């Protein structure tokens, strides 16, 4: 597992590498249609950089994954009162392969760590983690317990912390808004 799931530098480096590869492959053929294509790709690249971020911000699909108490509030977040879909926090996905955001809602036991790691690794990049509640943030009331790890950030890179015991669903909503700002580049990593 890498330290950072998604960083802009890595993304840009990958793009540079790709464009170099494309140039190298086009070195022998300097015909007109190819030039046209290269120009078109530059234009679309410039457009899509903004477009990809814009669309990514507006369709975050959380993973349907609850551990304990906070999962009840996570369910409430998904219910009709909050109506999270109006800002693009779409339907909870049952499989990690279709999800963008993992909301860790509850205390993390030592026996649960490998399962959470595996779920995280199954998610496709770019992926984000929200630590929801005291237990996922720092261990919370179970700080002294022998079977609890002191916060999910010891295992996974966390993007947003939402604190409270449990935080109201409105707080999670605010957390998602913060994540949107982070993806959109308004808040630095």
């Amino acid at each position, binding site marked *: 597992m890498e330290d950072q799931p998604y960083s802009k530098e890595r993304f840009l480096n990958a793009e540079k590498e790709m464009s170099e590869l494309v140039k190298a492959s086009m070195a022998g053929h300097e015909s007109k249609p190819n030039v046209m294509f290269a120009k078109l790709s530059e234009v679309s690249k410039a457009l899509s950089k903004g477009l990809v971020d814009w669309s990514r911000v507006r369709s975050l699909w959380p993973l349907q994954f609850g551990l*304990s108490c906070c999962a*009840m509030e996570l369910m*409430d977040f998904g219910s009709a009162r909050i109506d999270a879909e109006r800002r693009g926090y779409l339907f909870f996905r049952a499989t990690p392969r279709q999800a963008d955001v993992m909301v860790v809602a509850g205390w993390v036991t030592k026996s*649960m760590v490998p399962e959470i790691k595996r779920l995280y690794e199954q998610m496709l990049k770019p992926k984000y983690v929200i630590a929801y509640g005291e237990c996922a943030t720092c261990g919370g009331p179970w700080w002294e317990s022998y079977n609890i790890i002191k916060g999910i950030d010891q295992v996974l890179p966390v993007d947003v912390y939402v604190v409270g015991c449990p935080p109201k669903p409105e707080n999670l909503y605010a957390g998602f808004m913060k994540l949107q700002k982070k993806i959109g580049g308004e808040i630095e990593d």
Partner: protein
Amino acid sequence: MVTRINIGPVHPSTHGVLRLVADVDGDTVVNLEPHIGFLHRGVEKLVETRMYMQNPPYMEKLDYIAPMSYDDAYVATVEKAMGVEVKERAMWVRTVLLELQRIASHLLWLGTMANDVGQFFTVFMWAFTDRDMVMRLLEEASGARMFYVNMRIGGLIRDLPPGFGEKAGEVLAYIEKRIKKYENFLEKDPLFTERMKGIGVLSRERAIELGVTGPVLRGSGVGYDVRKNNAYYVYDKLNFRPQTRSDGDCFARYKVRMLEMAESIRLVREALAKMPEGDALGMPIKLILPSAKNRMVSLSRETPRGECLMYMVADSQKPYRLSIRAPTFINLAAMPEISRGCRTADIFAISGSLDLVMGDVDR
């Protein structure tokens, strides 16, 4: 040929992180083994290191769908150890709050259960909106949305707010109508009834032998309810009778919970009407000293999921030992037996109908 499949611990249909290892022959379940412990955090050990009134928050996190029932069970145990009488009005207020909590808990169960058997998110959305109205009432009475911690020795942290009765009356009238709507909607739907009727049958004799309690036991035709058989607070002064169904299948358990919600609404109304005036405030949390006479106490309460029994050995400032009989742990033990012979898809109907809370099972 028998194939072994693994379900969970993270599975959208198991309520909480429960791992089920099922041996299936084709689509028929031959054997099922629940593996638990994914939420174990050693509550019983942790409370030994804390003073008496620091513990209610830990107790509430055992059963996070109905926190107040455990809060009440623990505080009542401490009261018993101290030999303190609960104030008259506080008993009535506690009864009202506990029954409201039962309604909220059963509504959450209804939403998730309907989700499991194919009513995809329709009933879930309705039930959660209704549950939120009950939770707002409890928030008004206690000051917190989910973990209330409003029980104090001999009473409560605060009395009911002014105008609580009228608001509760409005909400209950609404929920009474909604329960009828749910029943109409679900029981006329073959999708729901065919996956519930005749699935996961637990006979009366086996239910008693396995020691299951709560709606699971009453769904098997045994009219045992701690509120009736070992009445606490003011349940003996109220017109109350346990709801039973004799079929013992998933549908019977569903029906018992629906009837219990209607019964709770009646209980709250009656208690609010009969409630005497007076003082309901409890002791400040620092004045706790159990008497030497009651060193070992045990006490049982009817939580929404069944009978919770607390056994406490009291010490001067902290509990020396606290042992909890978690209702869902015992109910889960019935699961391998009742799911033997069913289809693979029915495992989720059965686990849903048992109303498992893994925080309570693992402790």
